[in-house]
């Protein structure tokens, strides 16, 4: 199997599964229970939180364990908008956010908030100048993804964050689900107040995530209840998931430097290989892009067809963001980049992990070249 759909989800590390199982079996007590079994679970939860905080270079009480990227984005965006609604009603985001952010903003618009959607250039990047133009005195929230999930473009987070450092009345949220462990981003130094990370994108269990909430930032909780997770997210903690994710976090970050170097080489290998295929148009920009994603259209070939042909050879890629790939129509990001609907419908996304090998890509490129050639003759 050659799995190249790591932006959709990753295969959990075996060590993560071991932890998940052990914790489910032996640490099943509720961390909030007063008895000593509950105490054991609570201790494990505390240690998980401390370890995650140390790895992310933040404080333990700045970590909110969530059920994943979608919840993290919803809690950050709606939670901040509701908490600060009396300060102002203006919000800023981009046209290329993940659906979990984009649709949260749509909900807020329906509730009377005013949203500015920043456009992107042909590389899929928002411009700092456009952002400054959109920024107003009553802007209470800015939410921008770090790395785009469809084409891999890196957004100017540090630059925007540095500007917002001087604006204490605006909350800055970054969706780092795709960028985490692929493009380094320092939370404390980049002026970020809220940051979403997902567990299953870094070989952790499904249904896990972290929302970084900078000390002093208010959020109106989406779930009311027993007040877990510093009152931000009620509900009995998913301890097996949390421990598994924290282990995946550690294992991933331990390999981060070599992993990123490796991904850069792989991406170059893909760029080089794709350049030799006739009719291949690469949408992922050469600069300001995450090394784990390459988005490419093959002119005249519908992406869905290509996905199914590759899968017959045990190779797995995806059309666009998995979360919206079942809807018909072209990709939001590619359209926002000014690419025609037709070309966008011919785009596939190749997304890699640290574990992807050069020989995987060799086989993939060879198969791809062959199949694209065949399809062209068939369709002609």
């Amino acid at each position: 199997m050659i799995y190249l759909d790591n932006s959709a989800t990753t295969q959990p590390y075996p060590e993560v599964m071991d932890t998940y199982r052990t914790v489910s079996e032996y640490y099943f007590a509720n961390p909030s229970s007063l008895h000593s079994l509950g105490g054991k679970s609570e201790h494990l939860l505390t240690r998980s939180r401390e370890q995650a905080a140390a790895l992310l270079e933040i404080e333990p009480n700045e970590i909110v364990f969530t059920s994943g990227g979608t919840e993290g984005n919803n809690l950050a965006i709606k939670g901040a908008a509701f908490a600060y609604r009396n300060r102002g009603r203006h919000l800023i985001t981009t046209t290329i956010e993940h659906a979990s952010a984009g649709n949260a903003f749509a909900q807020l618009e329906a509730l009377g908030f005013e949203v500015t959607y920043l456009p992107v250039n042909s590389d899929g990047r928002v411009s700092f100048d456009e952002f400054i133009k959109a920024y107003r005195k009553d802007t209470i929230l800015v939410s921008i993804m770090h790395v785009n999930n469809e084409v891999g473009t890196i957004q100017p987070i540090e630059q925007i964050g540095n500007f917002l450092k001087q604006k204490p009345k605006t909350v800055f949220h970054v969706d780092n689900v795709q960028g985490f462990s692929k493009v380094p981003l320092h939370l404390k130094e980049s002026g970020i107040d809220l940051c979403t990370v997902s567990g299953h994108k870094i070989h952790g269990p499904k249904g896990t995530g972290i929302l970084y909430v900078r000390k002093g930032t208010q959020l109106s909780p989406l779930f009311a209840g027993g007040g877990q997770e510093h009152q931000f997210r009620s509900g009995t903690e998913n301890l097996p998931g949390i421990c598994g994710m924290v282990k995946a976090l550690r294992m991933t970050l331990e390999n981060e430097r070599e992993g990123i170097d490796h991904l850069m080489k792989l991406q170059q290998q893909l760029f080089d290989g794709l350049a030799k295929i006739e009719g291949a148009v690469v949408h992922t920009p050469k600069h300001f892009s995450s090394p784990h994603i390459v988005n490419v259209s093959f002119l005249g070939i519908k992406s869905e067809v290509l996905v199914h042909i590759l899968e017959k050879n045990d190779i797995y890629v995806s059309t666009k963001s998995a979360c919206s790939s079942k809807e018909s129509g072209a990709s939001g990001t590619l359209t926002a980049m000014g690419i025609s609907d037709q070309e966008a419908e011919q785009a596939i996304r190749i997304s890699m992990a640290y574990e992807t090998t050069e020989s995987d890509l060799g086989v993939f490129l060879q198969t791809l070249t062959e199949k694209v050639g065949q399809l062209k003759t068939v369709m002609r």
Partner: protein
Amino acid sequence: MIYDYLVVRFGEITLKGKNKKQFVIKLENDVREKLRQFPQAEIKRHFDDLEIKLNNEKSADVLNVLKKVFGIQNISPAIKVGTDLDEIRAGVLRVAEQEKGAQTFKIAARRKDKRYPIHGSELNQDLGGTVLRHCDWLNVDVHNPDLMIRVEVGYHEARIYGKEVVGVGGLPVGTSGKVMLLLSGGIDSPVAAYLTAKRGALIEAIHFQSPPYTSDRAKQKVIDLSKRLREFGGKFVLHLVPFTNAQVAIRDAVPEDYRITIMRRLMFRIAEKTALKRGAMALATGESLGQVASQTLESMNTINAVTNLPILRPLIAMDKLDIAQIAKQIDTYEISIRPYEDCCTIFLPKAPRTRPDRTHAERFEHKLAVDALVNEAVEGIETIVIDSGSTQDAVSELL
């Protein structure tokens, strides 16, 4: 980062006259101990400072550790160049370019080698001019500069310093001897531990627990506090005293309003015995004058009477809010506010005596087997050594 050195300067130690060397050696050992997690870093002791050669260790990480070491007044990142003027100029420019946030600067140059042909003030002018010519974002401000670039020309090399970072001050841990601290788990006593350690004391803590009235979580809370406090010393010894029998006996034999007074008197006796056993020369508490019933002058008088050891009360003149402030700074606050019962909150009288009397207290104690209770408690002590790097525990392999 361009800096390959960190230069650590001492605070009060430099006032120590003939004993100075002892203090400096202790500080050097502390720094060595703390920097063991950075195997590349090399430490060299000079007369006035410690020089740490980073060898690719991240200077921000090393700085964060050094910021917590008692006895350090300040730390400056530095580069070293030859004494040739052109080399010094180039070095100063590198520092100016590194510290991009600054808009104004000042050069403070000094010759350690008085034979060096260019005087300090001439160096200031020359180097200031160099910076002005090359860095158009910088202006001179000699009174309140954003960036002070200090230059020290020695015999063989010149050091150029970046932005200075303030250390915690105080004296190296252990240079003042050992102190036995009564650690309750509340907000105050960890702060008292911190402040006493800052004055060079090696702290051991004693904590009273009364299971089943107090829970394992209360114990874990004190262990977690100790882990925090350990960051300021090399290791931290925690004595856990079984106190249930004593408390039950007091409840049964002593009038309600005197229970706290008598309880504290027993605690001090137990702490004194433990202190003498462990070679500690004083007790310390987190008491603040008038804060609660046991902290009035009358109470302190009555309670203090059971021991001849000096009792250090570093918080005595501090307001609760100021204490909480320090607790937040040293990261003990969040642990201290965990809501578990401790031994002081069980069997709590409705109206404790705020002005207890020594003779009354002594009379009530006749009904108690004081010596037996104290001995039983001391013998039952569980001692835990919280060593550096002991964040490893039973659950570590799961994570």
